């Protein structure tokens, strides 16, 4: 059996759940079970029933918010009880945080943030990036159970089937929380999440000022229905929240189109976006490293070019 853990937010399955379902189906190791954890997740479980053979639902007040120790205990318990051979977890920040604990609990190898998965005679082969996403490493693991985190965007999301799988409520033995969250700041932008967007518009120092960022980067993003990203320099300067940072110490994105506005292209930043399908760069310095990995671009003043693009898109 393959078990995957479905992430969800605001009562809806996340895109990553459909990607995990696709990864699980391709592996063809018997039944695919999906685990849904949360509080009041009936609607999510109903959606999950269309992308797996079996839905396991942990629905309780204790699961209302994520905790690494609680989540890893729940997933390891279900994987052990169901004798899962492969456990797939989204390569989100939380997924990558609790998956190592699941691997240790199950005495399993962990394949992290994989971009491909293949099953050859009981051996699980995978690829993942190393050296700040500059290198692709091929790895394999063979064990009774293997835990895998899957990189966002690596698998095309599975389309929902027509027949709903059976749902089972599970009894979970959960540990007490020890990391107490005393406050949380969730930036609500109304825009699509960075890691889920088909188009990302990102801004760097070259946009000039925080106001310039809003006008140019947000303006273009809103025109395109895109997510907004930022460089580390812009986040360090306090112009933008950390949640928008793309790069080694921020988020890694792999959209259909990445539009870099006023970004020169430090290695740190490139490691977070260099796998994008199409890269577009707009920068005044024609020698900037970003142009070396760009498919399309304009060398010029972002303050003139971006407003002209917005104009053009409105036509």
């Amino acid at each position, binding site marked *: 059996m393959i078990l995957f853990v479905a992430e969800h937010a605001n009562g809806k399955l996340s895109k990553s759940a459909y990607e995990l379902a696709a990864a699980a189906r391709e592996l063809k190791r018997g039944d695919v079970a999906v685990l849904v954890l949360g509080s009041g997740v009936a609607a999510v479980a109903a959606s999950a029933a269309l992308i797996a053979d079996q839905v396991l639902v942990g629905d309780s007040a204790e699961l209302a918010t994520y905790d*690494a120790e609680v989540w890893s205990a729940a997933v390891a318990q279900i994987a052990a009880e169901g004798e899962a051979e492969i456990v797939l977890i989204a390569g989100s920040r939380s997924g990558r945080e609790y998956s190592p604990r699941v691997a240790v609990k199950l005495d399993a*190898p*962990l394949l992290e943030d994989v971009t491909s998965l293949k099953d050859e005679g009981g051996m699980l082969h995978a690829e993942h990036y190393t050296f700040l996403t500059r290198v692709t490493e091929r790895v394999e693991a063979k064990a009774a159970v293997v835990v895998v985190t899957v990189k966002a965007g690596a698998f095309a999301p599975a389309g929902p089937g027509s027949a709903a799988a059976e749902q089972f409520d599970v009894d979970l033995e959960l540990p007490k929380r020890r*990391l107490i969250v005393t406050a949380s700041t969730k930036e609500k932008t109304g825009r699509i999440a960075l890691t889920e967007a088909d*188009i990302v518009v990102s801004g760097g120092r070259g946009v000039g000022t925080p106001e310039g960022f809003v006008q140019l980067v947000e303006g273009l993003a809103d025109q395109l229905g895109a997510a907004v990203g930022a460089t580390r320099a812009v986040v360090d300067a306090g112009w933008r929240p*950390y949640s928008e940072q793309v790069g080694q110490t921020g988020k890694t994105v792999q959209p*259909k189109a990445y539009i870099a506005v006023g970004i020169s292209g430090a*290695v740190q930043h490139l490691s977070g976006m260099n796998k994008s399908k199409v890269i577009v760069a707009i920068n005044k310095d024609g020698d900037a490293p970003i142009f070396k*990995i760009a498919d399309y671009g304009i060398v010029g003043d972002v303050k003139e070019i971006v407003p002209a693009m917005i104009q*053009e898109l409105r036509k």
Partner: protein
Amino acid sequence: MRILTLIRQVLDAEESVRVRNGAVELEGSKLVMDTMDEYGVEEALRLREAGAEAEIVAVAVGPVRAEEALRTALAMGADRGIHVVTDVALDAIALSSVMAQIAKAEEAELIFCGGQEADWDSQALGAATAERLGWPQATWTSALELKGRLLVGRHEADEGSESFEVALPAVVTTQQGLNEPRYPTLPNIMKSKKKEIRKETLEAYGVAPKVKVNGVEIQVKERLKKILDGKDAAGAAAQLVKMLREEAGVIA
């Protein structure tokens, strides 16, 4: 209290990556302590400077040359080092077993570990070590204080950030913004040469890799590099939008 800071020696981010015989070639390249680990060493020093009575022990598992990174940690101010000398490349889950055994033997109560390191792009070491020790963890920590035996800080979650409290013992993984690591001063570099680095063998820990590496490749995607001159902003913008629509098909 004893604080462990886990150190990895990695390729300097500004160096280009070369592959030879199915592995990344590090000989002849500039190698440094991972920035994420520098944050850990710095934070341990700051907790002590803020009044915590602590011995700070830097730990590395790696080849002979990893001692250079440990020396950097000692030059920053760590008290001593432990170097498990091995050429075996351990995955994070296997490595966490070594780290947990050292933490137990040293009776450590706080462990710092990089949030994600620049050689293997793994985020697993801190959490896996915490699990083996039965400790809680705070990952991607960007602010930290020690109040008695309570760690109070802030860290990055899936969306946005969270303020947290967690009692010792605990594992903390680092993140940019936690601090600005200090540069070792010359007197401290001199002093660090006299500090102890205990050498150990991997065999003593009975750990073997759980994941086999079959090779590496540098996959460079050929880019079109259709770069326009933006002197005529409106014209260039119109042409770019046209190309993105009709040629690339990425916008509606």
